[in-house]
């Protein structure tokens, strides 16, 4: 029990993430799910900070909380009239899903615990933003460029598919 602080933060984050995750998947109201997702993503950002991945934590907040969630809310609003925003989000095939997902958790944890991970003393990383930035320009240049083309495709495609009848 040397560094209880880390443990406390971890468990707090876990509580936030898993509980809001549960809300995301069980809430009967779509808007509640959406907001719970904000908390879940924020909790993950907290993990990233704990894992000394500060750039990633920032990206998580910016892209997920700032971007994807807004997108989701827009979609919710575009597909429902404002007055029925608390539309019920019903469920189906509950029992097989519980069984399947439960089994997969068990099996994965089995795999995790049976594996002798080569755990090392964690290094302290500083200035990950700079290193990641230079990685993008050197070793990861190709994926970086491919990703940009990919985003362009997604953008154009989203416009076309979501656009009004008959296109532009």
């Amino acid at each position: 029990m040397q560094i209880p602080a880390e443990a406390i933060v971890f468990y707090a984050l876990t509580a936030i993430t898993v509980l809001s995750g549960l809300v995301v998947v069980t809430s009967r109201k779509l808007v509640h799910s959406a907001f719970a997702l904000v908390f879940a993503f924020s909790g993950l950002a907290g993990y990233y900070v704990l894992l000394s991945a500060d750039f990633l934590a920032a990206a998580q907040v910016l892209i997920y909380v700032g971007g994807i969630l807004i997108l989701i809310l827009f979609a919710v609003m575009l597909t429902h009239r404002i007055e029925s925003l608390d539309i019920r989000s019903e469920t189906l095939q509950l029992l097989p899903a519980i069984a399947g997902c439960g089994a997969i958790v068990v099996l994965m944890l089995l795999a995790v615990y049976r594996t002798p991970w080569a755990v090392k003393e964690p290094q302290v990383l500083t200035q990950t933003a700079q290193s990641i930035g230079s990685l993008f320009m050197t070793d990861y240049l190709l994926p970086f460029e491919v990703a940009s083309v990919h985003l362009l495709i997604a953008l154009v495609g989203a416009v076309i598919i979501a656009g009004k009848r008959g296109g532009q």
Partner: protein
Amino acid sequence: MPVITDNIASLGYATPELVLAGFFLFILLADLVFTRNRGQMACTLAILGLAMTLLVTLRLYPAGERLLFAKMMAIDPFALFFKIFFVGSTAVIVLLSPATAYIPRTRQGEYYAFLLAITLGMSLLASAADLVMIVLALEMVSVTSYLLAGFMKEQAASAEAALKYAIYGAVATGTMVYGMSLLYGITGTTNLYEMPQAIARGGAAPLALFVAVLLVLVGFGYKIAAVPFHMWAPDVYEGAPTPVTALLSVGPKAAGFAVLIRFFYAALAVPAGPGRWNPVADIDWPLLVAVISAVTMTVGNLIAINQSNLKRLLAYSAIAHAGYILMGFVLLNGQGLYAMLFYLIVYAFMNLGAFLVVIALAGPLRSEELKDYAGLASRTAFPAVAMAVFLFSLTGIPPLAGFVGKFYLFAALIEAGRAWLWLAVVGVLNSVISLYYYARIVKAMFLEKGPSGRLTVASAHQVLIAALLIPTVLLGIYWAPVARFTDYSLRLLGPLAR
């Protein structure tokens, strides 16, 4: 193996992708700038782009086998084989599209641009040497596929197809990425070519490794539509615009096989003598894939029997064919891979051909239902005869190309010894079952009575049908050059196949 770390120097070996990306942007821009005849212009540009891609791809052959962009991408005859394959199959789709009414006129520019984009994604996938590249390229193919499937969004079926495809695809990709994260945890690398040593060095973590491999397999299995990851395929194939369906059943499927082969043979197998491998760390993935192969062809064929919509029938047939092709994958030897590649070529011709006939007839016939094909032979002879040839080739009846392809697959299995004999038996039985439903179409076209009145098929389509028909017949009789080409294409980077 020669590695080129310098990104600028690597560019010279990535010319096909550069050209494709360039033309993709070019078409989008041109579509914005010009106002008249945009569809024709986009089509012309797409053809031009594909032709140029083919040219630069062929010029890459002297490059041999290399790793580019800091080991992100591999270039070898194996990858070039698939690049040519993708360019060819996309070209067929591009050429057949103008004479159809599937794509609304206002969206044609984007349509052709996306056809190039999906080709770009497939090319990258065939070359991907790093998990990051696999994910990115696979997603590029997937996302473009969703968009193309939903291109006729005014029709409910198309929109539905896009939605189902997107949800299923996203789940499969998510699962695959999760598997990759485990794989990274086990090996410490995301590079395929560093994995065998890392796995060997890392000692035994068989269960975690198996879970990781299985989850990754979900992503690949979804691309090639192997059971139990196949269920999106029939719905999407039926709902998507038929030219897109034709492409989906050939291009991305082949891309899935390309990445499957490279991933498993580069990362999870170690060479054991010329043209043979052993699985790394005793993971019995060949048996896993063999079972998937057997189940895939059986399920595909069994359900296909009861289909009444031709597109859907061909979708199940495409699933069954994924099972056939997988037979070659489990052998861990060059002969198996050879049979797979050869079958892919053959499959491209006959499957595109069958879809092409459906597309060509969809206009004059206003239907894609089997019952409307009754008496077709007397209404328009050439497409009916061509369809019969394509279907018999898909069945594997000599002397058509499909027979030779299947022969190589079965022979490779039988050569490999008694261990895989059961798979060959399953394969043969399945071929027999498949005759049942292919012959039903032929019977409808030639023996049943239908409405009278001649149908006129667009001459562009007739020419294209002939262009696919000739190799389908010819490859059944004389295939030596293609066989040599396939043989040469087995030069997979790292572990040489032959």
